């Protein structure tokens, strides 16, 4: 249950446009919603924490569709963030058709997107952050939960440097990381040395002696309170991403180590202890129930956007979404070594109603200038909404899988279940930038290889267990692997080995034969030495060949059971 006060805070964003149905014009909607509405906040206490996470290098405003399917398992079934669509609107008391419904759910997405426009953009974010800092001088801290240096053409070409410049300019106070590590050990060390703020990751140790690689904790004094912030990088980076790129670093949840760091911070006189985490929401929920003394967990990794804090014992969990779509503001009353009260608002960054910060606009323009022609190259158009986010499949993944099968002459395609990737609306041009926003990684080679039916089943079961293991500490991260050319059923409540059924080759309608070899194309292999053209070239060629691509949600992957 959310309290009345929390509801009111949330309602500012969710309710501003109550009554704004589909008949409203975009202009009317934008007149109704203003920058001041977004910033409106009844201040509380002596400390303000601002948080973004998982922006995936999106400098420019984008569309981002929230998931239709987000299944919770075990003890967490049906709890936020495992609530979507209509159920989400009901739970948080948001009316359909409002800006809140548009920001937080998949409902009427493409129609509402035309009304309310794009979200995010680092120059818009800069405006909001500057305004809040001006309102709360000496009280404000701004944290970045990571997945910041990867996800766009400019971040790929500058090897993360564009984002380092932008995050320095935003006056970030600390960050933790995940995809940052996919630039490899040397580059990470180089970029960390360029930061004006702390890169904190207490759970990263060297593989030889298990000694800390980065700073674990950074301490601030704001509003007369001593604030300790502990960094927690994505625990399964060397499992989910290529380990060969960071061979000397070991990760893991390291719960006992987190407790040690919290105790040390308290012993050092911290009035407030914050975990800046890239664990993922369910891992943090479990961690908060087992580690004592954390006041706030700023969660990340799973891209969840929740308009109210989730309370676990005495710890508040904040979920700030992804892609620069939201800025979290958390006001705290910290006195006598204790958090006495809080007020929270998840601020949607509606690009069209926020005046861009001119300095940040200039910096972004400068960063993009060398790549402008390439970024803007139109490859074709989309006939349907293209998106990725969701547990099972996304329409942009269907385009990628079609591209892999056609361009590489394969019977089956596998595409990774990443959570990042901006959405496109029906009729929109698809540019090189858009394709990069869906595919830009440092290990982009597309492989083509024979796989037996048995191996395909093993892979699907393995990935399904990484998503649906009832113990979140055993979830490795990412959504289900996307599959083209093959249908199957999935029952999340089963154990590993029993979740996947009815595997069918769509080309012939025949059941997958465990003994037969199939021609499989895919990308983002974590194995060193994978060869093939980069995925963005494959997808680009496919879109150019078709002119217009269309992918409607389909039922090749069917959820069964519970």
């Amino acid at each position, binding site marked *: 249950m959310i309290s009345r006060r929390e509801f009111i805070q949330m309602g500012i964003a969710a309710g501003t446009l109550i009554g704004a149905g589909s008949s409203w014009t975009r202009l009317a909607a934008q007149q109704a919603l203003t920058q001041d509405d977004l910033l409106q906040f009844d201040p509380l206490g002596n400390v303000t924490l601002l948080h973004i996470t998982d922006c995936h290098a999106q400098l420019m405003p984008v569309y981002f569709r929230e998931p239709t399917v987000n299944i919770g398992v075990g003890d967490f079934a049906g709890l936020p963030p495992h609530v979507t669509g209509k159920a989400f609107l009901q739970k948080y008391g948001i009316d359909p058709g409002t800006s809140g419904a548009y920001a937080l759910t998949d409902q009427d997405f493409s129609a509402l997107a035309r009304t309310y426009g794009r979200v995010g953009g680092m120059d818009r974010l800069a405006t909001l952050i500057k305004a809040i800092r001006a309102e709360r001088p000496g009280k404000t801290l701004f944290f970045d939960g990571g997945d910041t240096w990867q996800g766009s053409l400019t971040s790929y070409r500058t090897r993360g440097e564009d984002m380092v410049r932008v995050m320095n300019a935003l006056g970030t106070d600390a960050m933790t990381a995940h995809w940052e590590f996919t630039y490899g050990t040397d580059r990470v060390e180089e970029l960390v040395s360029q930061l004006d703020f702390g890169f904190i990751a207490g759970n990263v140790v060297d593989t030889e002696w298990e000694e800390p690689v980065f700073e674990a904790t950074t301490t601030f004094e704001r509003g007369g309170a001593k604030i300790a912030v502990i960094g927690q990088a994505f625990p399964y980076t060397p499992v989910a991403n290529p380990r060969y790129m960071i061979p000397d670093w070991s990760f893991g949840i390291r719960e006992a180590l987190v407790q040690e760091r919290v105790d040390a911070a308290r012993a050092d006189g911290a009035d407030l202890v914050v975990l800046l985490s890239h664990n993922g929401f369910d891992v943090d929920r479990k961690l908060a129930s087992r580690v004592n003394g954390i006041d706030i967990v700023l969660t990340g990794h799973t891209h969840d956007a929740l308009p109210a804090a989730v309370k676990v014992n005495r710890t508040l969990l904040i979920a700030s979404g992804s892609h620069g779509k939201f800025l979290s503001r958390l006001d705290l009353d910290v006195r006598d070594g204790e958090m006495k009260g809080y007020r929270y608002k998840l601020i949607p960054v509606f690009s069209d109603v926020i005046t861009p910060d001119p300095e940040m606009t200039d910096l972004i323009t400068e960063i993009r200038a060398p790549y402008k022609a390439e970024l803007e190259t139109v490859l074709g158009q989309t006939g349907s909404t293209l998106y990725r986010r969701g547990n099972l499949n996304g329409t942009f993944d269907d385009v990628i899988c079609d591209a892999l099968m056609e361009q590489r002459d394969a019977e089956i395609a596998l595409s990774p279940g*990443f959570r990042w990737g901006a959405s496109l609306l029906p009729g929109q041009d698809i540019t090189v930038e858009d394709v990069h926003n869906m595919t830009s990684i440092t290990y982009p080679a597309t492989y083509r290889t024979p796989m037996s039916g048995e191996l395909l089943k093993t892979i699907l079961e*393995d*990935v399904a267990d990484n998503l649906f293991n009832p113990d979140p500490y055993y979830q490795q991260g990412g959504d289900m692997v996307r599959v083209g050319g093959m249908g199957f059923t999935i029952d999340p409540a089963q154990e590993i080995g029993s979740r996947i059924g009815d595997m069918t080759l769509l080309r012939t309608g025949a059941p997958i034969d465990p003994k037969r070899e199939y021609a499989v194309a895919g990308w983002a292999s974590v194995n060193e030495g994978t060869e093939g053209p980069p995925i963005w070239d494959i997808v680009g060629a496919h879109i150019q060949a078709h002119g217009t691509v269309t992918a409607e949600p389909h039922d090749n992957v069917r959820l069964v059971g519970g």
Partner: protein
Amino acid sequence: MKLNRREALALGAGALFVTLTPFRGGALANTTDEEIKAFTGGATVMEDDVVSLTAPEIAENGNTVPIGVSIDSPMTADNYVKRVRILADGNPRPAVATMHFSPLSGSAEANTRMRLAKTQNIIAIAELSDGTYHMAKAAVKVTIGGCGG
């Protein structure tokens, strides 16, 4: 005095004696239950808080999984840890190592690395000087990887 890790290990080497379980050429490997029975002589094993076992929830590299054991014991002449047996119940040969301690060890703590063929439980059993046996278990998942994010 502040010791660095390398010096501490060098000192520790004198106090701790580790037997890596030898291969039994040709003979079939014992099952986990048989290994436990052989170690305890059939005595009751208590699954309590005496033994702490540290292992990753998901292995980063199944070929070299770091684990640590630490036993809550004063390590005095009349109350100390004698031996600790490490088993991996899903490996073709579950027996991994036996660590021998004495009151002179100072503390009963050890770290090692092991190879895990697949997802399985790591088991650590300690024999105390009072003749009791204590056990801790940790599940370690070995996964294909990829797709995260």
